[in-house]
């Protein structure tokens, strides 16, 4: 025995109970209110298919109570009814149904102002459950990845037999079953007669049973999406990605309601629902029962219900039924030639093959008049179907489509959205004759049951009204996931990787304030003992670099090694400038363009030896550049090997007028300007760590980019800090770097350029060597060379104010360009920046208007770097 709470009231549950069965046992008959008319709805299928028992369980809305095991302490609440399920004020809506025929909302409120008033009210009454607030406690979900030679979907008699057969042949089998125990419909049609094959199956070591699991998608490549509930106490649900060489679909059949007036009243159960209550939960569902059905299935049911002490008042053929009587629950049944009182109607509804998975996987659904159902045909090669899903063993309880489907306003076809047979007939007469448009117009089949309950009657009505056959009318497209899946299970555990550089904890100790750059964390700036204000800290870092020495962690740069006889040839082909003539020991700036001449990335290429290059890329583009090189290498037969060294190397940029002094104290290498000039590279020990040193200068000072093995990154960092102490060295972050490079007008690809920028427009014609034999983008760049429409230029504000990045450049009140980067330059005493302007405004000294807080302020174009335009300091 356990106890849970429904709307605050304690409910006793017995072992094996679901939330729904315990509530039914406790006397509850109304479980939900319907979507549109707020009609009372009670248990119907007890198999998780219909929408009639959706409740809020522990804060989660729209939970099917009939397949949710009752657990101690659960908090269950009703939804979509106010104040209670018994007394729902919105149920008044059913009295106004004549004002709400199918598609009424398209035909009314066509004036925009009327619609704006009405829409919020319509929203309010629509919807089912309430989602929890954003700070509600999360739940654990997990992902698993399994493989099998044979996956069997469905643990009924056919699935068990198929699994056993495959296992006996030696195959490794996974059997997926959505019930707590295998056995399928036998568990409630022939209780107590567990087939011997279940025990045999359990003895097979090469069969794994996934219980309480269902397959919701058969995807390409033999991938099955499987959802397992409560895999272990630490996880709420587990999504299994199952790859199987062969798939056996044994999903069986499900039962759907019949169409008659008030066919949705509480107290009307499908035969499977009544049997589940009786045999799985030992609940006697009523006292006076009418069975709607014919043939052996109805007779068997009558005998089983009688055995439980239920009085079977009458057994009526579906053709004879006119309607159920009652307002909030069943009180009787009207049929041709009479009526009868009862408190329970059990409907032997048509059994339909559960072929959605097969249809998803590409099978055709063919109408079979003999079965009264669409049966799967033309299965994909790796998929087979067995048992009732193929139609075998199914006899239609009634001829389908029903001999006479009555158009009625209380004949509910779609329980999820309250679509009646009248609605469908009306929609068809308005011109929605195709089953797909009928679906979209009436919303039948689009609700939580995913069309299980309503698709066949909808097709039947459509066929009859349009004079077509069922086969001609056809089905709507089956789409995954079916059954539905929670977002939590799909998302899995909340893993969002963070990349940290080898010096991460050094930065933290120095007071770094972090910046997200892709998956990386980089120091934006460092707080100091004096201040944590960004502007002051950045200025301090800036001054250190300009006046003394600074160091920045550039480990996030992409780093690639390109080796082989044809390495230079590949680089010549992919980059716009030439590398085959780069002498060992030299570095060159590099740009990649696509075939339209658009700049994709930049970096440096160092020649280590004639057949050995060391490349850096921007932080965000490493994966792209690596793939791009591999792509253009593919099929050439060239001798080139590309190795990604990014994670294996740490890097520091040391820069400033005294950087040389700092470095000299740590290495035996001659770092004089003569021995190690600008744009040279060397390999040497720095602080006893083997390093590649590039003499380059993004920030405009004498500097070195020092690459060392990642595991030595921290040692290098500490050694540089220590050696730099005497010179007043400071660690600087990305923000100071942005300002420093801006004074040099150095472009950051992807920040200052966009998806249409060519090197000409970015004022970087010098990186394009059109005289080269061929390279990616040459044709486009040859055409573009003389004629840029826009130009990236430097500018200095002539009025007070610092434009935000992205501010507009305006001309006559219209947008004419944009600021890509702008900062206050301590050196200039004003804001400086880079901006896109029309070619006509790109001349030196041209006046432009830049919007600052909405006001167009004067700025002047300058194409010369603000700082050290000749680059003398770089070469010192």
């Amino acid at each position, binding site marked *: 025995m356990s106890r849970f709470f429904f709307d605050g009231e304690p409910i006793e549950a017995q072992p094996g109970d679901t939330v729904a069965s315990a509530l039914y046992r406790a006397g509850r008959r109304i479980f939900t209110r319907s*979507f549109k008319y707020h009609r009372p709805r009670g248990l119907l299928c007890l198999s998780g298919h219909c929408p009639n028992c959706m409740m809020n369980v522990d804060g989660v809305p729209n939970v099917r109570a009939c397949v949710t095991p009752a657990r101690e302490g659960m908090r269950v609440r009703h*939804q*979509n009814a106010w104040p209670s399920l018994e007394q729902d004020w919105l149920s008044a809506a059913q009295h106004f149904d*004549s*004002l709400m*025929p199918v598609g*009424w*909302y*398209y*035909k*009314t*409120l*066509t*004036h*925009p102002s009327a*619609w704006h008033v009405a*829409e919020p009210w319509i*929203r309010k009454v629509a*919807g*089912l*459950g309430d*989602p929890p607030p*954003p700070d509600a406690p999360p739940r654990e*979900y997990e992902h698993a990845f399994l493989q099998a030679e044979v996956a069997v979907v469905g643990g009924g008699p056919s699935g068990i037999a198929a699994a056993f057969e495959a296992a006996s042949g030696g195959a490794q089998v996974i059997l997926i079953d959505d019930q707590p125990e295998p056995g399928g419909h036998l568990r409630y049609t022939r209780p107590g007669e567990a087939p011997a094959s279940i025990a045999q199956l359990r003895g097979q070591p090469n069969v794994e049973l996934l219980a309480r699991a269902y397959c919701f998608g058969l995807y390409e490549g033999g*991938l099955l999406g499987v959802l397992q509930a409560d895999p272990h106490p630490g996880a709420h649900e587990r*999504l299994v*990605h199952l790859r199987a060489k062969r798939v056996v679909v044994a999903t069986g059949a499900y039962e759907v309601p019949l169409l008659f007036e008030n066919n949705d009243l509480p107290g009307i159960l499908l035969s499977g629902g009544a049997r589940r209550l009786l045999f799985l939960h030992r609940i006697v569902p009523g006292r006076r029962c009418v069975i709607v059905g014919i043939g052996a299935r109805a007779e068997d049911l009558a005998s089983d219900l009688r055995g439980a002490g239920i009085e079977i008042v009458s057994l009526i053929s579906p053709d004879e039924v006119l309607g159920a009587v009652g307002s909030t629950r069943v009180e009787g049944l009207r049929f041709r030639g009479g009526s009868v009182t009862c408190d329970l109607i059990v409907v032997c509804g048509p059994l339909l093959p559960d072929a959605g998975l097969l249809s*998803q996987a590409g099978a055709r659904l063919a109408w079979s008049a003999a079965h009264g159902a669409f049966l799967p045909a033309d299965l994909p090669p790796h998929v087979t179907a067995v048992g009732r899903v193929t139609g075998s063993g199914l006899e239609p309880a009634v001829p389908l489509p029903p001999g006479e489907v009555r158009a009625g306003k209380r004949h509910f076809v779609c329980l999820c959205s309250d679509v009646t047979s009248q609605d469908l007939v009306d929609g068809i007469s*308005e*011109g929605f004759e195709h089953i*797909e*448009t009928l679906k*979209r*117009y009436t919303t039948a089949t689009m*609700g939580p049951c*995913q069309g299980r309950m309503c698709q066949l009657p909808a097709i039947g009505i459509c066929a009859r009204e349009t004079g077509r056959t069922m086969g001609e009318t056809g089905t709507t497209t089956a*789409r*995954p996931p079916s059954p*539905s899946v*929670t*977002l*939590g299970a*799909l*998302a899995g555990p*909340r893993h*969002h990787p*963070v990349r940290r550089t080898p010096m991460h904890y050094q930065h933290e100790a120095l007071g770094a304030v972090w*910046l*997200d750059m892709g998956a990386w964390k980089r120091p934006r700036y460092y707080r100091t003992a004096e201040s944590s204000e960004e502007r002051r800290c950045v200025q301090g870092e800036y001054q250190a670099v300009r006046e003394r020495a600074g160091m920045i962690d550039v480990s996030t740069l992409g780093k690639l090694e390109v080796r082989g006889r044809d390495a230079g040839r590949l680089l010549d082909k992919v980059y716009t400038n030439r590398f085959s003539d780069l002498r060992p020991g030299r570095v060159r700036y590099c740009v990649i363009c696509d075939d*339209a001449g658009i700049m994709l990335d930049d970096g440096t290429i160092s020649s280590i030896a004639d057949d050995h290059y060391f490349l850096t890329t921007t932080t965000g583009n490493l994966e792209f550049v690596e793939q791009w090189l591999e792509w253009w290498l593919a099929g050439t037969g060239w001798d080139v090997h590309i190795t990604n060294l990014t994670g294996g190397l740490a890097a520091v940029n040391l820069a400033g007028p005294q950087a040389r002094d700092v470095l000299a104290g740590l290495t035996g290498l001659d770092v004089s300007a003569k021995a190690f000039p600008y744009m040279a590279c060397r390999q040497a020990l720095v602080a006893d760590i083997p390093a590649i040193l590039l003499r380059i200068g993004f920030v405009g000072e004498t500097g070195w980019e020092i690459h060392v093995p990642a595991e030595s990154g921290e040692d290098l960092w500490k050694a540089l800090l220590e050696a730099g102490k005497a010179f007043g060295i400071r660690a600087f972050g990305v923000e100071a770097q942005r300002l420093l490079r801006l004074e040099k007008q150095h472009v950051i690809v992807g920040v200052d350029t*966009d998806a*249409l920028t060519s090197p000409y427009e970015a004022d970087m014609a010098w990186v394009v060597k059109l005289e080269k034999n061929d390279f990616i983008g040459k044709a486009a760049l040859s055409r573009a060379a003389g004629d840029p429409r826009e130009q990236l230029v430097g500018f200095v504000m002539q009025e007070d104010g610092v434009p*935000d*990045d*992205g501010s*507009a450049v305006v001309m006559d009140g*219209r*947008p004419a360009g*944009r600021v*890509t980067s702008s900062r206050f330059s301590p050196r200039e005493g004003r804001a400086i920046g880079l901006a896109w302007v029309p070619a006509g405004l790109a001349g030196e000294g041209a006046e432009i208007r830049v919007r600052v807080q909405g006001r167009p302020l004067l700025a002047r174009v300058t194409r010369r770097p603000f700082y050290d335009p000749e680059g003398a300091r770089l070469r010192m």
Partner: protein
Amino acid sequence: MTQLFGNNRMWRSHELKKSYDVVIIGAGVHGLATAYYLGKEHGVRRVALLDKGYLGSGSSGRNTAIIRSNYRTPEGIPFYDASVKLYEDLSRELGWNVLFSQCGHLTLAHTDSGVAGLRVRAENNQLLGVDSRLIYPEEIRRLVPSMYLGAGQRYPILAALYHPPGGIIRHDAVVWGYARACDRMGIEIHPFTEVTAIRVENGAARSVVTTRGEIAAGAVLNATAGWASTISAMAGVPLQIVSHPLQACVTEPLKPFLDKVIVSATLHVYVNQTDKGELVIGAEIDPYQSYSTKGTLPTLEQMATYTLELFPQLHGVRVLRQWAGVCDMTPDFAPIIGAAEDVSNFYMDVGWGTYGFKAGPAAGKYTAEMIATGKTPKIIEPFSPSRFRTARLVGEKAAAAVSH
């Protein structure tokens, strides 16, 4: 009210005639809107709309129905703004409620560069008269109280571009409304009529061969999506288009908790809640080219992951359906509208990538004007097919990619 209770037919079916003044291939929102404005504003009513499937079976029924005009370029902004204005009045004009909910549209930025990108749009929008501005977490929290802006987010929300006139629409209703209006003007809609060839004689498109016979045409318009390049190829007109699937999914209905459209390019996801209560979630385009309209599991997982980053409380909400549409991507993320350069009588309104639905009315209006008058309206000039030859691309990528 009589309309409400009477079952008036929306449209009629017709035998295919031997010839029409204009034959429009594709009866989605673009084709229908073009036909509607041809009939209404230019009196051209001998028009046939051909579609290989049922009405609205293509991208018009597969998009996530987001309407907005907060684009990036001075070419794109006025065009989409014209479209939003036509949508605002469409229900009244057609006498058919297309359920346009101007609930407001938020594009989130999670990085510095993201904020700068949104600022470019805000600035250009404001200068061109579109209501759009940058807002920051405090205001975002007030506008969208159900979104998680608390601690522990991997990519915290730094700012958003708020576009109050943006919103969502009932896409099928737009298709049906235009179709009904076309039918009433005598324009013929022919579903299940697939085009198999286009006959070009002496450099001019003369007729269209369909699965129901050949029809002569005074002018032929390719208004297809997903297969635009194959249709144009029938007339011998090559297009700079590659086709990628775009996936989306929808959940079970919930009580209203989100009345804004939320878009995040960093998280590759966009989310809104329909009037019925369902959550509609879309992804970015698949990274590979394909004509498949079937959903894949990895993309569904990605959509769920990112939705839960923004709305972690929705973990127990169930996805009902997942589908894909095919998007015709141009190199500059802007459409191709205009007369073919080398084949006369052949017009195109194609290459709508992931942003075609919101453009339907304006594209239709100006395409109709172009066909009826023989002159290209200024507002669609930047989208001319010749721009790929003259290298005058539009550059809408930053605002169009992901941000549907």
